[in-house]
């Protein structure tokens, strides 16, 4: 008894007249209060949570990325340069020092 009387009141408040429309909506909302509302709440919660998650991952990625750029990238570049220089030097030593090296042991002996 209480539910039908409360439902038109609610519909009237929500749609302000428009009987057929209100009734239709009313019927849907009575059964759907629990379902659509729940779904909507769940959806908005998920949206908010995922937004937060996305934002914090973005921030973490930003911090990690800038830290990497400042601390590690120069190190990699410089070590690569050093390695290149060592390689070049050993190559040069190979070119210049190759003839004396096999020749030197007989010279010592």
């Amino acid at each position, binding site marked *: 008894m209480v539910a039908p009387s409360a439902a038109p009141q609610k519909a009237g408040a929500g749609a302000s007249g428009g009987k057929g429309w209100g009734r239709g909506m009313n019927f849907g909302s009575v059964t759907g209060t629990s379902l659509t509302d729940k779904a909507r709440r769940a959806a908005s919660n998920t949206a908010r949570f995922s937004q937060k998650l996305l934002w914090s991952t973005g921030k973490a990625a930003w*911090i990690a990325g800038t830290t990497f750029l400042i601390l590690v990238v120069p190190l990699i570049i410089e070590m690569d340069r050093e390695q290149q220089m060592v390689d070049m030097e050993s190559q040069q030593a190979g070119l210049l020092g190759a003839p004396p090296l096999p020749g030197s042991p007989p010279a010592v002996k």
Partner: protein
Amino acid sequence: MGAVFAKSDSPSPDRSPSPDWLNLPCPVKYDEIQRENIMSLKPELFEGLRFDFTKPLNQRFSLSHSLFMGSVEVPSQGAQIIKVPAAHYEFGANLIDQRMMMLIGRILTDGRMSARIKYDFTDRFSVKVNAQLTNEPHFSQGMFHFDYRGKDYQTQLQLGNNAFYGFNYIQSVTPTVALGGEVFWLGHQRKSGIGFAGRYNTDKVVATGQFASTGIVSLTYVQRVSDKVSLASDFLYNWNSKEATTSVGYDYLLRQCRLRGRLDTNGCIAAYLEERLNLGVNFLLSAEIDHWKKDYKFGFGMTVGE
């Protein structure tokens, strides 16, 4: 004592585990015990442009010119960072005699002036004077250091303006460990303090611990991974504010460059690159990022001469 007797009893001290207790090495000065750590973890970071030029006039005398353009942080009580654009030129004159004397003078366009004198009377006794003159009142300071280097100890007496008196002593206890202590008295602020420090030093590892009655505990550790690479870390705890900070860093000394990086628990990261472009020409890059305060400092510079 027992070890000394044991050593004198044995005629051939070939055994490496028992060191020669009467010939311990001379320790590092008390105020320099953390120098390796400071070298690796605390480079001179700057923001803006720097240009340093040193011109030697003869073997002993050189002139230095240095230019800085950038922004300087102004201390403020709020969380916000206030930066003011600043630029200055510094002129300096250095007289360095390898044997006994060092005179260094600096003058800046904003009116600051500083002078450093070091004079070795003998190879054990030396005097250092640091002076700083500014046009702001009460910021000028002068300091005298009298150093005496013993066979296995070092001691220093400090006299400064505002009635500052300090004394420290450090003694080698074993070939790798040195222990020391200091006392100081600040006459104008009616404050005194006492501090203790220890340093463990081998070829690969330097570890120090320092404690002062002002409430500061500082521990440092430097590990030399190879002759090119060393890793450093430090821990600082302030008893009064109950705040602790830890930082770790690397120090790469390559053939063409020196690169230092640091990461600390305040969310601050820093890197400092010195690249040798040519003989006597160095290119500097300095970066510092404070993630929490969103304070970003980048600088570049050149050093010519030296």
